[in-house]
């Protein structure tokens, strides 16, 4: 989602005066100050996640530079080698700020990957349900209903109990948890779109089903989908962190924010709050900014609210 908005920035200066739907969308979006700030914050977070190895002050997973002597330094503490750790260090002497940068990379990566895959599956299935109707629709929507009647965390927990740990496994689990939301959203808007004239026209031209589904129907179902993608990405990130915290998500070799927080749990009772606190704040900022961007997108893209 954020990618599409950023692409927009690069195109912006070319057409200045023409009022395109896209420009209207942009100016609507930028009306809210909160939304602009959260978009900016989200941009910074994505930037950090992408460039983590280059901008981290230290490499927390380079065994040569991490020593146990620097462990449990409070925020702003100086290491033996004279490096200042602004957010302190954890029990093994890894700088927290750098760990968070690396953790963001994994958390965001898992969240975005899983919601994009779920989007592809869910959108296809939802379009098919709406377009073919009849038995296909009944079967698909029944599965969606059953799936949605169980809380996401429970389904993910069951799946991970069966699958085991690993990045690929948690992505599979998150995809299975999420696809139903997309399927339902796409179906709802595709049901309306299906009866419009352009679909009839496409059918009269004897275009293939595949072409009608993906080239004609899908683009017109996009606005609500974009909102769901944003919200679900935030949800996926939070779910991944929770599962990793519970010890059933990512293995210890892929330290996401959830694992960082879990690491600090043991130290917290001895008042070393920073090990859990700062990764949690990073997680919180990420989720809140995605949610706020999603909120504004919902308002802007909602046809009922359009001026």
């Amino acid at each position, binding site marked *: 989602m954020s990618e599409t908005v950023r692409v927009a920035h690069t195109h912006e200066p070319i057409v200045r005066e023409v009022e395109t739907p896209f420009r209207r969308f942009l100016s609507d979006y930028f009306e809210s100050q909160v939304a602009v700030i959260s978009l900016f914050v989200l941009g910074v977070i994505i930037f950090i996640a992408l460039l983590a190895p280059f901008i981290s002050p230290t490499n927390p997973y380079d065994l040569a530079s991490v020593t146990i002597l620097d462990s449990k330094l409070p925020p702003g503490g100086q290491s033996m080698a004279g490096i200042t750790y602004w957010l302190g260090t954890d029990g093994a002497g890894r700088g927290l700020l750098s760990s968070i940068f690396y953790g963001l990379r994994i958390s965001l990566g898992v969240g975005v990957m899983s919601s994009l895959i779920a989007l592809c599956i869910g959108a296809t299935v939802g379009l098919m349900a709406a377009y073919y109707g009849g038995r296909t629709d009944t079967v698909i929507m029944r599965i969606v209903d059953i799936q949605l009647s*169980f*809380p996401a*965390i429970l389904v993910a927990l069951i799946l991970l109990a*069966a699958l085991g740990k690993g990045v690929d496994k948690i992505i599979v689990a998150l995809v299975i948890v999420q696809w139903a939301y997309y399927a339902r959203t796409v179906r709802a808007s595709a049901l309306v779109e299906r009866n419009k004239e352009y679909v009839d026209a496409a059918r009269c031209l004897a275009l293939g089903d595949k072409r009608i589904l993906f080239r004609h129907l899908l683009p017109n179902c996009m606005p609500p989908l974009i909102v769901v993608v944003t919200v679900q990405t935030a949800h996926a990130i939070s779910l991944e962190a929770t599962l990793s915290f*519970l010890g*059933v998500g990512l293995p210890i070799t892929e330290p996401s924010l959830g694992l960082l927080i879990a690491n600090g749990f043991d130290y917290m009772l001895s008042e070393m709050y920073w090990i*859990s606190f700062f990764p949690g704040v990073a997680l919180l900022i990420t989720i809140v900014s995605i949610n706020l961007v999603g909120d504004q997108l919902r308002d802007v893209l909602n046809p009922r609210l359009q001026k």
Partner: protein
Amino acid sequence: MSLIVFVGVNIVGDPVDMLINPEADQAEIERFIRDLGLDRPLHEQYWYFVLNALKGDLGNSFIFNQPALKLIIQRIPATFELALAALLMAVTIGIPLGVYAGLNPDYRISKTIMATSILGFSLPTFWVGLMMIMVFAVMLGWLPSFGRGETEMLFGIEFSFLTRDGLAHLLLPALNLSLFKMSLVIRLTRAGTREVVHQDYIKFARAKGISQNRIIFVHLMKNIMIPVVTVLGLEFGGLIAFSVVTETVFSWPGMGKLIIDALHNLDRPVIVAYLMIIVIIFVFINLVVDVLYSILDPRVRLQELKG
């Protein structure tokens, strides 16, 4: 369903490594494996499992050497107590705040309430739990941070809320678990209130000179309760699912804690039994909610009559 879980659980890890004394010799290990029935092929194990399950025996826990079913049923009251306490908190705090924000949408307090509710949606439950322990248990020392505290027997079941100590133990976990639902209740009540205050019957009640309190508590409340109650019913399942997280953070001895421990120790019978029970609970909850829905909302009943 049971087959998938059973096979999946059996592929992950080797419980023998976890259970046996590292100094045991080969003969001992083999005897141990035979005792647990782990030497038989998988399909045979599954067959025995189904046969026993039909007799109501889901196998013995590897760790506790007690029937898995009994272990879980023992833990159910603790989980339900926690979930109900959280639900109660969400309602008693959420509804008044939501009504207030709905009646005075432009007040600064209302805006703060709404902003906080967005935060409540975004905050990862487990992290909030950790921070609560940090602040209230470690730094301030006001409230205990783990366990159920003293319990009192009522109808042969142990309850925490009957003793002062137990209540103190219950407060933090319940608050933690209820935060998310509370935000949900606030948003629902606010949206409901804003819709209802503009209805004719409210204007009419005002015109009749009925006191503001009576309008709010009788005319308004009745009409906003339908969506709130149904959503809460649906979300009760979510509370039980999310209690897995809260129980782990606060070491609350419910079934969520049990399943996480079982996952870590690869205690297969407990995992399988838990999943069976949770599925039954959810099917039951969904059924109750469906029934409640048609009782509460006459429109649903009428629709069915028409159809």
